[in-house]
């Protein structure tokens, strides 16, 4: 199924400089639900330590594409992904790759905050416990504190770590699940419309957080807000009906799009 693409460097959207290798290389990535193809051969390189935004009208395949990177499509009945996806030069769809190990390296934040019905502490400690990340006594406490600090939530919850994660506000819950994701020290964070259930203040905080996190992580974010994509991302990809129509520097996409469909979408004439 996976057809080996010959020249990896000839992607039309290869934006990474030779100095910095891309985090992901996608070649001819296709996704199916049953017999319906919803991604029609995506070729793209995703740079490391920066934010890449995926935009496009509803149903164009952004979420499906995002789930390609942590193989969450594997968990959906009927879903199938073909093509070639490399992370740091290694094919993540090869038989040697254990999806659970991959997902420990590629974290994900969902559209709706989904804290587990456990305490705040146990929410953040969930991943580290599963992957055995805490070696000495007290290390788990350190991981939890560090992750909550990174997610800019520590000060608000440090006195109530035993309370259920569901007792937090929506914006706090979203930061909690980000803390939960970074607690296993992933290299990549996938975010699927992370701000869609947040108010403007919480959204601003989230964007600030993304800005800080990108020093260390490769971040992919799906968003319906042009303004948000423009604010947080270095690169933007525009999806339309299962195809990656245009990909490039965010500045260029928003000021000088090449494709007419991109132009129409960002100016609000389609979508």
């Amino acid at each position, binding site marked *: 199924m996976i057809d080996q693409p010959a020249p990896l460097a000839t992607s039309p959207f290869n934006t990474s400089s030779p100095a910095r290798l891309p985090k992901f290389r996608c070649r001819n990535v296709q996704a199916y639900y049953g017999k319906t193809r919803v991604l029609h051969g995506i070729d793209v390189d995703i740079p490391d330590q920066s934010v890449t935004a995926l935009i496009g009208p509803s149903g164009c395949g952004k979420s499906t594409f995002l789930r390609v990177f*942590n193989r*969450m499509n594997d*968990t959906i*009945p009927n879903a199938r992904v073909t093509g070639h996806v490399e992370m740091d030069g290694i094919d993540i769809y090869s038989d040697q790759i254990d999806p*659970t*190990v*991959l*997902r*420990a390296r590629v*974290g*994900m934040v*969902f559209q*709706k905050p*989904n804290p*587990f*019905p*456990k305490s705040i502490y146990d929410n953040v400690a*969930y*991943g580290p416990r*599963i*992957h055995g990340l805490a070696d000495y006594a007290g290390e788990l406490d350190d991981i939890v504190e560090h992750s909550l600090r990174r997610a800019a939530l520590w000060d608000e919850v440090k006195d109530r770590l035993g309370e*259920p994660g*569901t*007792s937090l506000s929506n914006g706090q819950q979203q930061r909690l*699940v980000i803390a*939960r*994701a970074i607690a*296993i020290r992933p290299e990549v964070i996938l975010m699927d419309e992370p701000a869609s259930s947040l108010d403007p203040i919480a959204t601003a905080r989230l964007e600030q957080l993304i800005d800080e996190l990108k020093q260390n992580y490769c971040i992919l974010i799906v968003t319906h807000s042009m303004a948000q994509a423009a604010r947080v991302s270095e690169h933007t990809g525009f999806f339309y009906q299962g195809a990656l129509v245009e990909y490039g520097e965010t500045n260029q996409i928003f000021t000088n799009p090449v494709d007419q469909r991109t132009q129409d979408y960002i100016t609000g004439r389609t979508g």
Partner: protein
Amino acid sequence: MPMLLGGVYLFLIVMAFVFARTLAIMRFYVPGLGAETRPHSVPNFHAYFAAWTAGFFMLLMLALYRLFFAAVGSVTIPLILMALITALTCLMSFKLTQREFKARDYVEGFVQFALFLCSGVVILITFGIILSLLFESLRFFEKIPLTDFLTGLEWSPQIPIREDQIGEAGSFGVVPVLLGTGLITVFAMLIAVPIGLFIAIYLSEYAGRRRRRVIKPVIEILAGIPSVVYGFFALLTIGPMVQTGMAALGFDITAQSVVAVSIVMGVMIIPYISSLSDDVMSGVPQILRDGSYALGATPSETVKKIILPAAFPGLMAASLLGVSRALGETMIVALAASKAANLTFNPFEAVTTVTVQIVTLLTGDQELDSAKTLAAYALGLILFILTLLLNIIAISIVRGYNAKFHR
């Protein structure tokens, strides 16, 4: 005679209905017979209003007539009265069937009232049963002191009690009966809860849609087998099987052993627990599952750490429902358990249960006033209280948990 009254009753209601409907159509819709504005209610509501009124008052009259003039026994008088009520209804309808009359609102009121009446009747019946349980039990406790009943270690009501010996202590001690019930229930749950839970985990987390669609109904067939079938299965197959199995190990046990009965009862309860638990676990939001998988958890870790805790109150409720089924189960134990009350904790001996004793006490010739008969009420009351307590515990577990984790 009741047939005649019933027929006439229905006929008269239809009469009232047709009368009011025709009247309304003529007044509202036939040109020249009324004003030009739209009526508040369409003709059907005027008709329903008349029908409800006639039906209600005729029923009321019949009830009162039976109550006060039952001795007269005449059919003619009620018939005449019914006709009279219908005539009055039509007269009323003649006056009330106007454009502005709010027949629709009144009919809504009638419907509400009737629905309320239904639930009210059920509640009354429930209370009636509880009260009769209580009062008959009190009569029993006049003969046998409550403390003797609750603490007595010997249960042998079948021993003929002479007039002067009624109430002699030792005959009606409920402890061995309760212990027997508890023993069988515990062992049945030891089988039903784990197996039911594993089935539910497989169905909701592993089976996938297609296999689940096949397996779940098959398991639910178990729930459709009449318990009397389970009963003779326990009596004729499992009991002797356990007996010979233990004999091979050098133990001489009865065919009515707790183990044999509990195995069958456990199997009977499995589908209740698996089906309910599957519903509960499938109800755990998919985003929690996704969250766990996205952190690199395996399916079994997700089940253990996310699904089971999140579904815990529901699983608890399912298990407690299983317990109350086991407590109240009658046919299996009536056929396959002992009638004699043994005071024992040994699962390889025979014990009796509350339900078995109720059946035994009430079959055959009975004097309604004997301690033997009344004891059945006391046993029934105990069973009721136990089940009620279980329900209260289940509800409070669910409430407490919900208050903590689901806002």
